[in-house]
């Protein structure tokens, strides 16, 4: 294993020191592993998110004006713990309440649940939205349900914009739920990833195969198929999404890299998405191409689509100023 680190168990802490040094718009509590906005907007509903590390820039890279008020990074691929989340929640509450944006993984759900109870004991009103956009996972009442992946960026951006505009907690939560309900993702891996603790790739993937329907933790996907062109891989992703949520109307499309894929290849994939949607009743009116929700050094990509309406478009366009997403300021 080759990594630019000091020690496998120091990555999260060292990276937080780096964020603190690089971003003066953030206030980083390295000991408690909480990344705060340095100058929060007074009186507004606060947004807190978090999850395993290894998905950078998610979540700490989305802390700032118009998006999150605090992020709680866990160990690599491991959800944060209740005390940490509760502390962040209590700290950012202005009295207007706090929205927890939680990716639907058992660990994240349970730890955020416990944190919400602890924060409620301190008198904080907490609402929670579960992000579960990954169509690679069968949606069923009898299972853990779908994973949360790329749509997290949309939910955090749109709900953050609503909060910044002064919407009350219930409304901010409703925006978050709407953004999630209208979004779907599908991911494909060309290679596995290597966690610093394990020191070797999580799964073996032969040179001539790709893994379809991967998540963001290096979990194996639903099936393997032979390595194919960007055109064919994008077609598989769009079909999987379309089968669940028909692709029509105004779309926000993200082609997201898993961390190890060159940007030029992500543009190649985006060109395919655009070409394959042409002629249908679907229009890409907003887009994002880059590494936003990653899996360490994994090579691969995911496509996330949100069916916009006027409100969501407006919230997406609203100013944002975070390390990883910035416009309008």
């Amino acid at each position, binding site marked *: 294993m080759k990594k630019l680190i000091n020690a496998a168990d120091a990555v999260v802490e060292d990276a937080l020191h780096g964020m603190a040094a690089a971003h003066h718009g953030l206030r980083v509590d390295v000991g408690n592993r909480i990344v705060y906005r340095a100058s929060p907007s007074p009186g507004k509903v606060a947004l807190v998110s978090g999850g*395993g590390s290894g998905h950078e820039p998610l979540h700490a890279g989305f802390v700032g004006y118009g998006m999150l008020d605090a992020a709680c990074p*866990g*160990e*690599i*691929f*491991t*959800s*944060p*713990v*209740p*005390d940490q989340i509760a502390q962040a929640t209590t700290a950012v509450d202005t009295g207007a309440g706090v929205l927890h944006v939680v990716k639907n*993984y*058992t*660990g994240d759900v*349970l*730890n955020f*649940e*416990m944190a919400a109870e602890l924060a409620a004991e301190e008198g904080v009103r907490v609402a929670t939205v579960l992000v579960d956009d*990954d169509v*690679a*996972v*069968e949606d069923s009442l*009898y*299972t*853990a349900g779908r*994973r949360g992946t790329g749509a997290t960026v949309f939910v955090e951006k749109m709900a953050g914009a609503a909060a910044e505009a002064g919407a009350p907690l219930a409304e901010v939560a409703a925006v978050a739920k709407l953004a999630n309900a209208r979004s779907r993702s599908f991911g494909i891996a060309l290679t596995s990833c290597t*966690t610093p*603790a*394990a020191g070797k790739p*999580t*799964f073996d993937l032969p040179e001539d195969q790709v893994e379809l329907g991967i*998540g963001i*933790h*290096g*979990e*194996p*996907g*639903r*099936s393997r198929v032979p390595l194919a062109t960007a055109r064919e891989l994008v077609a598989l992703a769009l079909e999987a999404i379309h089968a669940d949520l028909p692709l029509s109307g105004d779309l926000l499309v993200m082609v997201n890299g898993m961390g190890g894929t060159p940007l030029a290849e992500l543009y190649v994939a985006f060109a395919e998405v655009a070409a394959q949607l042409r002629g249908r009743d679907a229009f890409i009116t907003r887009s994002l191409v880059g590494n936003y929700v990653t899996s360490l050094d994994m090579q691969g990509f995911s496509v996330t689509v949100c069916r916009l309406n006027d409100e969501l478009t407006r919230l997406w366009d609203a100013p944002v100023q975070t390390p990883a997403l910035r416009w309008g300021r």
Partner: protein
Amino acid sequence: MDAALARAWLEETARVVAAERDRLTALDAAIGDADHGTNLDRGFSEVRRAMTGSSPGELLVSAGSALIRKVGGASGPLYGSAFRSLGKALDAERDVTLEAFAAAFEAAVSAVERLGRAAEGDKTMVDALRPAARALARAVRDGLEPREALDQAARAAEEGAKATIPLTARKGRASYLGERSAGHEDPGAVSAALIVRALHTVATRW
């Protein structure tokens, strides 16, 4: 069970989890995200440092809190709640009978099932814990010696873990794999069996 035995159990669990860390992580790599061993090792190291109390109940509650504080992931809240429920059910009793322990163990397993919304057959730690609870209750009913009773509980947990191999996961991260999760032993079921076995190992007297 007195405080010394409760301590010994937690120490032994920490030792075993550290020794088996890489195996647990490897099991998790196959159908999860390759962190179960690291998670539990981090948690039980903290348990070792932080456990406090003069009764088994206090000690086990403090262990549960340490797990919740340090593990993260799915197994942190689940094992954390299990140990906290176990400890709370034992109250401040300084000398716990096997019967009281079995009842508390039942409460602990129920807590996991409730929190995880999981039942036997979902391919989770419940597949080891529930059979262990049943075996313990039966052993108490049958009037077995504590050591023998715990051996049966550990055996039931180990068999339960093995029996997860053919199952398709319905809960936790392995559920995302659908049918590809079949053919692998559930890491949480294996760690649960290690924990029950650790109690048997140290319970040379009760």
